[in-house]
């Protein structure tokens, strides 16, 4: 009998875990890699809920309506077929998660309850208190543990991905990874590899993301020549709690449950979202709310007490209702600021939250390298130019449901077994990364790596987020090139060979600096405004020129070799850009407006 293949999954958030579960169900074994114990992945931070048109509220909701809201909310930048498929699978996914034991909130009849979220008029968001992501992740973590007990999953926790390895035919057949405690570097073979490594929030310094969301895995993959799509589309969430160490998310579910956004004007509360967008009010999509807050604070100078904050006010709602539906996020606010949001309005401000862009994938979640898949936030496929709230948990689970079986099918078509491949490409990869580790270990220049990231983050936050000008984007790219050179002059204090966090950080920083370039240059080259990408000098959406997927492909310098494993400071390679047409065959593009009701019908009238 032929030897059974093994799959490799990198990343233990919702997407990686669902990929793992589906692969196991299809009879394959999985090696699962994660830089943290999988139960601590960033999916835990998703608060508000998960969308699916289960339609139990008598509102006439449907998957087609969900599909239309998602495509319209994404400002017609997503290829439509996978979005449709996801919305069709959404009710089934929510039912599945309920069967797995997620303690979703219920109605008096014991059915699943749903709440409202931004960018829709329907109660479509299932929720478990206000830590829905945590609860969904735990449910999948438990199922993976069940497979682990059965011997079908081997976990490699505290292992960090360094790159993928290809066979002679160019198929992805393994990875290189390092143990962040023992520091050993190893290659692992598999029939196919999936990356579910999350978003790049840390490239912006402070964000709503976990510290582990460096984007390093995606960047390393891009640096190996894999296509990276729509890098310039970065979501800035309108409501986060400003903080010294991080900007903590204050979920959109607060507004879904009735919170109002205001600033004092002429001695009275001014509910500016309700006035500017009467049809959707406080539940406009995130890009719209974020720009309105920027305008009110920066252009009109109306921030609360002259500071860069606005009020997010729940204090008119009974405290008992709030505790039941939003307990977890109220606790976060109270714990970190000392104020009780059931009594006083919260102070919030926009913060970098999510990357719509990511590794390019086809409709089976396969990247531009055969056998290498990407799932979840690290893939670009679903959210177009702006993601709707409560669609991220859904898209992560959806991607895993698709990728698991697709990887199994792909593996069955391979003509050889991974254990029988020549070791050359694996040996080369191992050698390169060992050289890189020892290069970093010896760095003794004057630059402080943590200061470098701080500088990068400040530039990215100032110039590559809510409002973008070409002159400042160009200056930012020049700055990134400077920081890239300075990276080679870093010095580290710790020369240890055990749990040396400085070495890991410096290696991640290299990747983060490289990923900052496609984000910035992608924005520079897109002369229009669409979803989260807004240029005052080009305020209109331009479907003729830019209703296209941005593709960034890294052109590497020629002089990388083992004696200079990071190349040379002065020649870092650069992203090349091309633009792919988008499949808009299911819903005809139309202007996106939230001051009036969405033009009726959308998908349902255009099939």
């Amino acid at each position, binding site marked *: 009998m032929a030897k059974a293949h093994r799959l490799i999954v990198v990343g233990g958030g919702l997407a990686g875990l669902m990929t793992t579960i589906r692969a196991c169900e299809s009879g394959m074994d999985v090696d699962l890699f994660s830089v943290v114990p999988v139960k601590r992945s960033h999916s835990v931070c998703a608060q508000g809920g998960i969308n699916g048109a289960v339609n139990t509220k008598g509102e006439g909701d449907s998957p087609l309506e969900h599909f239309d809201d998602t495509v319209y909310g994404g400002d017609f930048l997503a290829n439509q077929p996978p979005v449709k498929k996801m919305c069709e699978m959404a009710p089934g996914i929510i039912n599945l998660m309920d*069967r797995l034991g997620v303690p979703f909130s219920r109605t008096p009849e014991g059915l699943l309850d749903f709440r409202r979220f931004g960018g829709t008029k329907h109660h479509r968001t299932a929720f478990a208190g206000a830590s829905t992501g945590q609860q969904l992740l735990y449910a999948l973590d438990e199922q993976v543990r069940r497979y682990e007990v059965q011997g079908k999953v081997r976990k490699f926790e505290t292992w960090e991905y360094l790159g993928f390895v290809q066979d002679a035919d160019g198929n992805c057949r393994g990875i290189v990874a390092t143990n962040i405690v023992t520091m050993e570097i190893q290659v692992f073979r598999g029939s196919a590899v999936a990356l579910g490594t999350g978003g790049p929030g840390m490239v912006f310094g402070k964000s709503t993301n976990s510290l582990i969301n460096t984007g390093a895995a995606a960047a390393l993959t891009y640096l190996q020549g894999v296509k990276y799509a729509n890098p310039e589309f970065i979501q800035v969430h309108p409501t986060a709690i400003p903080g010294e160490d991080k900007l903590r998310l204050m979920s959109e579910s607060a507004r879904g449950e009735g919170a109002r956004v205001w600033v004092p004007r002429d001695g009275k509360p001014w509910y500016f979202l309700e006035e500017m967008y009467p049809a959707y009010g406080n539940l406009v999509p995130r890009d719209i709310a974020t720009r309105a807050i920027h305008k009110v604070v920066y252009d009109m100078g109306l921030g609360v007490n002259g500071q860069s904050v606005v009020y997010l006010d729940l204090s008119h709602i009974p405290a008992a209702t709030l505790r039941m539906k939003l307990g977890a996020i109220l606790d976060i606010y109270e714990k970190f600021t000392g104020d009780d949001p059931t009594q006083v309005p919260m102070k919030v401000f926009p913060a970098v939250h999510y990357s719509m862009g990511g590794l390019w994938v086809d409709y089976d979640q396969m990247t531009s390298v055969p056998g290498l898949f990407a799932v979840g936030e690290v893939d670009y496929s679903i959210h177009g130019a702006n993601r709707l709230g409560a669609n991220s948990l859904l898209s992560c689970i959806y991607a895993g449901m698709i990728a698991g079986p697709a990887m199994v099918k792909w593996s069955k078509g391979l003509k050889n077994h991974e254990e029988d491949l020549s070791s050359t490409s694996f040996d080369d990869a191992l050698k390169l990364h060992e050289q890189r580790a020892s290069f970093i270990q010896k760095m003794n220049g004057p630059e402080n790596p943590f200061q470098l990231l701080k500088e990068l983050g400040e530039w990215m936050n100032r110039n590559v987020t809510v409002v973008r000008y070409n002159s400042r984007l160009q200056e930012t790219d020049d700055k990134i090139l400077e920081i890239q050179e300075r990276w080679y002059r870093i010095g580290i204090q710790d020369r240890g060979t055990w749990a040396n*966090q400085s070495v890991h950080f410096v290696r991640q920083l290299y990747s983060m600096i490289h990923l900052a370039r496609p984000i910035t240059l992608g924005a520079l080259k897109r002369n229009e405004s669409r979803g989260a990408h807004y240029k005052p000098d080009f305020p209109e959406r331009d479907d003729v020129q830019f209703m296209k997927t941005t593709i960034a492909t890294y052109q590497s310098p020629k002089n990388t070799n083992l004696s200079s494993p990071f190349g040379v400071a002065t020649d870092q390679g650069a992203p090349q850009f091309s633009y792919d047409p988008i499949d808009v065959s299911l819903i005809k593009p139309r202007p996106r407006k939230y001051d009036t009701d969405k033009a009726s019908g959308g998908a349902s009238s255009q099939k």
Partner: protein
Amino acid sequence: MEKSNQVEKFVEVQIKRQEKEGAPIYWETFQIKWRPNLNVIALLQDLQSSPVTAEGKTTTPPAWEAACLEEVCGTCSMIINGKPRQACSALVDKLEQPIRLEPFSKFPIVRDLMTDRSRMFEHLKQVKAWIDIDGTHELGSGPRYSQTLALSRYKMSECMTCGCCLEACPQYGPQSPFVGPQAINQLRLFNSHPSGSMNSEERLDRVMGVGGITDCGDAQNCVKVCPKNIPLTESIADVSGQTTRYAFKKLFS
């Protein structure tokens, strides 16, 4: 401005250091510039960037773990001023100084404030903390149950496996087989689900021998330190009742 006239304030932090298991233990003291709204993570981030002791000696940055910084991931557990808790939600202005940071003592040390808490996940395996679903294919909606049950299950399910309860429990430790409060609470969580309850007895079997429920000494420390206020002692009492009823049932059947 009023503030500019004030003398610069500093926060004093003492950190227990150890390079790896078996290496010598020593303490280092640091002075960190005070700013408003500092938490223990922000202090450690300062040291990461500039690891200089109060005596002006450059040292290695202390090793520590963190991820979400919103107290939902359970990563940044450590002992702060004698109490096991999450570093992210430990606000400097609410702590007595000097602030003393130590790693958990009930788990193998990795380095400095990092410990290896993987044993907790083994406890979850032991109590079969999952629902035995038939598969992920479409099977319609899940079982109906009340909002009251949903709320009580949600509370139990907020456990982030941070380990504070185990650090505080006098019965738990490297030499003890006791599974501890977190796993017992998870057992109750799954036994309380309509389909999970179909395998209740299998789970109870796992806590009725050595290291099981009867090892609890009723110190009630667990519930006092749980950052999520999970009713751990209630869960222990509930599961204890379940095991008693199950033992009688086995005896008379």
